[in-house]
């Protein structure tokens, strides 16, 4: 098992070295990045907005029910909702959701291309397939995911505000005061650093599994599953490491 783990780590590093080699023709890669921004990012806007709004609402309601002493001011609901969303929910949980959506897409796309010999065809033409296929996806995810996560933060905080008002648990002015209270810009920086690292992990790990798929349709499915599971595990591990490094 350790041997297999080391084999995959080694091969992953070697693949990444191939991915970040100088592209053959930069104009083609810029176009590819734009295509991937649409495929990996813009197509995820709906699901991210939906989940964020409802999660923000749930966090707000849970906080309101947990504050049952008059010594804690009600604006704490807004403050805690914001902190939960900015520090953990948006960068980590949304990244895990994107690992499922984007990771499976990347792994199955590359896996299908491998088993139908399209990757061999790219190589025969004289193009480095790792760079051509994976590099634009990584760059696109690293560029678009922070925007998705900022949008998620806004939607979640708004969801909390709507839930607070409609349930009558907190007044709008109290919630808004809580949102603004003790705000640290470093929290946003911390969240965005995590997002960028997670975006890289999702696409590179899923891409690795797809790129080295062997066999047929069944194996493409396996690669897709492995891509999602392994990138999710990596996100959880790196979440701990980055939190320790950036917040300690």
């Amino acid at each position, binding site marked *: 098992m350790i041997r297999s783990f080391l084999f995959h780590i080694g091969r992953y590093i070697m693949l990444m070295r191939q991915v970040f080699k100088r592209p*053959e*023709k930069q104009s*083609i890669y810029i176009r590819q990045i734009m295509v991937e921004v649409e495929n990996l990012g813009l197509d995820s806007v709906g699901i991210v907005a939906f989940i964020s709004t409802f999660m923000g609402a749930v966090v707000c309601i849970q906080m309101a029910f947990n504050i049952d002493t008059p010594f804690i001011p009600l604006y704490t609901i807004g403050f805690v909702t914001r902190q939960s969303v900015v520090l953990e929910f948006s960068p980590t949980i949304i990244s895990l959701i994107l690992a499922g959506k984007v990771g499976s897409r990347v792994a199955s796309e590359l896996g*299908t291309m491998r088993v*139908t*010999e*399209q990757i*061999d*065809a790219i*190589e*025969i*033409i*004289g*193009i*480095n397939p790792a760079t051509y296929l994976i590099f634009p996806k990584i760059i696109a995810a690293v560029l678009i995911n922070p925007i998705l996560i900022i949008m998620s933060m806004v939607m979640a905080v708004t969801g909390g505000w709507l839930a607070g008002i409609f349930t009558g648990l907190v007044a709008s002015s109290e919630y808004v005061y809580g949102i603004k209270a003790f705000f640290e810009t470093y929290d946003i920086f911390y969240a965005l650093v995590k997002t960028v690292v997670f975006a890289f992990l999702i696409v590179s790990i899923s891409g690795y599994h797809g790129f080295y798929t062997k066999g047929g349709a069944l194996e493409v499915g396996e690669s897709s599953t492995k891509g999602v599971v392994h990138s999710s595990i990596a996100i959880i591990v790196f979440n701990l490491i980055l939190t320790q490094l950036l917040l300690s």
Partner: protein
Amino acid sequence: MIEAKNIFKSFGDHLVLNDVSCRFEEGKCNLIIGQSGSGKTVLMKCLVGLFEIDKGKVEYDGRAFSKMSFDEMKVIRQEIGMTFQGGALFDSMTVEENIMFPLSMFTDQTLEEKLERANFCLSRVNLPNANKLFPAELSGGMKKRVAIARAIAMNPKYLFCDEPNSGLDPHTANVIDNLISEITQEYNITTVINTHDMNSVIEIGDKIAFVHKGQLWWEGNKDTVLRSDNPELNEFVFATELTRKLK
């Protein structure tokens, strides 16, 4: 000319190619024939560098291809066209975009020039009105022809075809064979075709290499293949009742 010298290739403990040496000549259709699992596809993939060989060497007109780095290989690969068994057309691109893809990557041609070349290649394979179709909308024979069009887009010096007529009806298979043969002679290409189709062998086999159990078992051409006294080759060539009657 492409030359394979003492090639060995194994996967784990399984030796697939055992000391294979062969020459593939310019302006000719060089056929690699053999039963399924004999090592034909592995040999072809070793020739184009998709598989790294364990021992031996592959030379393209004296250039030691198998010893080159990936970046050095890229130069020779721009002189290679290859068609794959299933076509290997890029699903997300139209027929026209598939053909223009190598041109976009390696030339500074304008869109009009690339379109002109794509149209020429498509008319050469008798598919003049397929430009805007996607691979999913094509029949098996059309996919093979588009794959040939893409392979010749860059005016290759070497053309590799892996099972170009597998899964096709006899008429379409014959059309594909003749097309490859015509293109080979027209552009003086070194063409290597992997097949187990006896019609192809008799129709276009300018040079034939019979691979058996990972070894080069016999070499000849379409005239000598039917008269050989090699028992393994005869077993392959005269496997059907029809060919036995013909003999």
